């Protein structure tokens, strides 16, 4: 029975079974999509990729050969949740099977975005995107380095925009911008430009534009690679990133010194508009010329003002007025001083007078002299002032001013003269007294000094000077002495 059972089953050699399994598996799973997490990722020296795709219970060996690896949209890495597409292949020698992968997608956009996000946060924590690391973009670069695909619209858009704005020297580093190897080529381009010596055979760019056109998240993955972010951050030449469309943001954009929403915008950020610069330069140059002209005109105007001031009559009049003022101050103070001096002299003399006639005469003389002198002094100065006034007779202001001053001084002098007058002997005479004299200058003070028949003269208030009335004593003065 046992033999029969055995004889009913076909007998395979190991290889035959292996072949059978291989045929069955490869036919059944010639095209399979498998979801799982990448682990034990490994890249061989020849460029083939190997990993194990696993879920919570099983593992599936995966291989991706070099030609396919170069076209992968997503760069496999450990921990990445992916959906791989390929065919099952068996390896009979070791009773193994594996999936030969030709496409890798991240399992769901959410998972991919999470991976990118985690990476971005890690690099940010490292300080790779810090503001103080950002280099300023030169205002007008001479040479622009571009790292992008040599095919496609990006380089075309950039060149087109540059041509419109400000034609410059452009050096292109052609690089794959998606798939396996893209990130490495992009990073190599950035490093290449940085290593150039100024003045070497290849012009060293003043600014770099690194980018590619729009695409899916997977398409843009090269610009999310750490190696690209690090190359941008390490670049001593300022980098403008231009990846995809406005809404696409990659890690490269964070690392770049300036992020352009599109390649065209990157060209706009790289160079100013030549026509605008020309206009601005012309404006500034015009301001320069106008500035100098204005500077000269200002000074001419100032010179003219000074010249006018030199010849303007009012200046002379003002000077004359000042001199008249000074003269008048002197007149006024002189007058007052003189009067004060006469008073002092009068007071002093009155204490020393021997006879009333002496006193009165002296007083009379001095008063007259003083009055005459004061009159002369004032008169002379008045004349002087009058002369000056006439000099500028056509200036009513000066005349008014001067006359006002003259009038003021005259009033003050008159008042002082009256004071002097009030204290003179004439006032005594006015009160009804008469001066009795015997001969010239001898005042009769006492009756007993007179004898009967003696000739005397009488001086009344209305007597003309030097003409006293002659008189004679009729009766002798009674001797009252005992």
């Amino acid at each position: 029975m046992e033999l029969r059972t055995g004889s009913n089953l076909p007998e395979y050699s190991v290889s035959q079974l292996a072949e059978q399994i291989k045929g069955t598996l490869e036919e059944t799973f010639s095209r399979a999509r498998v979801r799982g997490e990448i682990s034990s990722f490994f890249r061989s020296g020849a460029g083939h990729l190997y990993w194990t795709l696993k879920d919570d219970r099983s593992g599936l060996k995966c291989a991706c050969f070099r030609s396919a690896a170069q076209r992968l949209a997503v760069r496999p890495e450990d921990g990445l949740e992916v959906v791989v597409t390929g065919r099952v292949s068996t390896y009979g020698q070791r009773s193994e099977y594996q999936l030969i992968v030709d496409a890798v997608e991240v399992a769901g956009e959410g998972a991919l975005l999470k991976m990118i996000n985690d990476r971005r946060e890690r690099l940010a924590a490292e300080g790779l995107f810090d503001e103080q690391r950002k280099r300023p973009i030169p205002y007008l670069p001479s040479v622009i380095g571009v790292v992008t695909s040599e095919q496609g619209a990006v380089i075309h858009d950039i060149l087109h925009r540059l041509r419109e704005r400000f034609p410059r020297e452009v050096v292109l580093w052609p690089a794959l911008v998606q798939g396996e190897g893209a990130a490495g080529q992009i990073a190599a381009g950035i490093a290449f430009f940085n290593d150039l010596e100024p003045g070497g055979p290849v012009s060293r760019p003043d600014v770099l534009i690194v980018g590619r056109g729009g695409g899916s998240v997977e398409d843009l993955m090269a610009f999310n690679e750490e190696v690209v972010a690090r190359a941008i951050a390490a670049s001593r030449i300022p980098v403008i990133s231009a990846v995809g469309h406005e809404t696409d943001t990659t890690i490269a954009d964070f690392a770049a010194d300036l992020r352009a929403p599109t390649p065209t915008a990157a060209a706009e950020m790289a160079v100013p508009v030549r026509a605008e610069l020309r206009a601005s330069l012309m404006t500034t140059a015009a301001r320069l010329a106008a500035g100098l002209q204005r500077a000269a005109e200002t000074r001419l105007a100032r010179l003219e003002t000074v010249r006018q001031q030199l010849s303007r009559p009012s200046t002379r009049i003002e000077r004359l007025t000042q001199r008249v003022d000074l003269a008048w101050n002197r007149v006024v103070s002189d007058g007052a001083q003189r009067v004060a001096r006469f008073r002092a002299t009068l007071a002093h003399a009155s204490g020393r007078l021997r006879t009333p006639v002496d006193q009165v005469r002296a007083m009379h003389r001095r008063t007259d002299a003083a009055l005459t002198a004061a009159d002369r002094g004032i008169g002379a100065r008045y004349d002087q002032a009058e002369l000056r006034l006439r000099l500028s007779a056509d200036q009513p202001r000066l005349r008014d001013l001067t006359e006002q001053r003259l009038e003021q001084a005259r009033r003050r002098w008159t008042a002082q003269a009256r004071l002097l007058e009030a204290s003179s002997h004439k006032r005594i005479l006015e009160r009804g007294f008469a001066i009795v004299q015997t001969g010239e200058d001898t005042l009769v003070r006492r009756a007993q000094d007179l004898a009967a028949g003696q000739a005397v003269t009488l001086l009344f208030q209305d007597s003309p000077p030097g003409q006293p009335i002659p008189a004679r004593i009729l009766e002798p003065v009674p001797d009252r002495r005992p």
Partner: protein
Amino acid sequence: MEDADLQALSFEQALEKLEAIVEEIDRDDVDLEQAIKAYERGVQLRDHCERKLNEAQERISKIRVKDGGIETVSPSSDDSDSPPF
């Protein structure tokens, strides 16, 4: 200003200096002699800026890695089947 110093100035630097000179001349208290000197310097800067603007010339080349070495190729002399980027 020395001529060599002037040549070393970028467009932006020269324009900034020019603007500073314009401000200087615009001041009322500037010495006339000084204003004239500033103006002459300004004219030099203006000419320098103008030269920089006129230097605008498009020149395109691309890097090619060949036999481990690197060479620059201008698009016109490049292989005819490569795209005229």
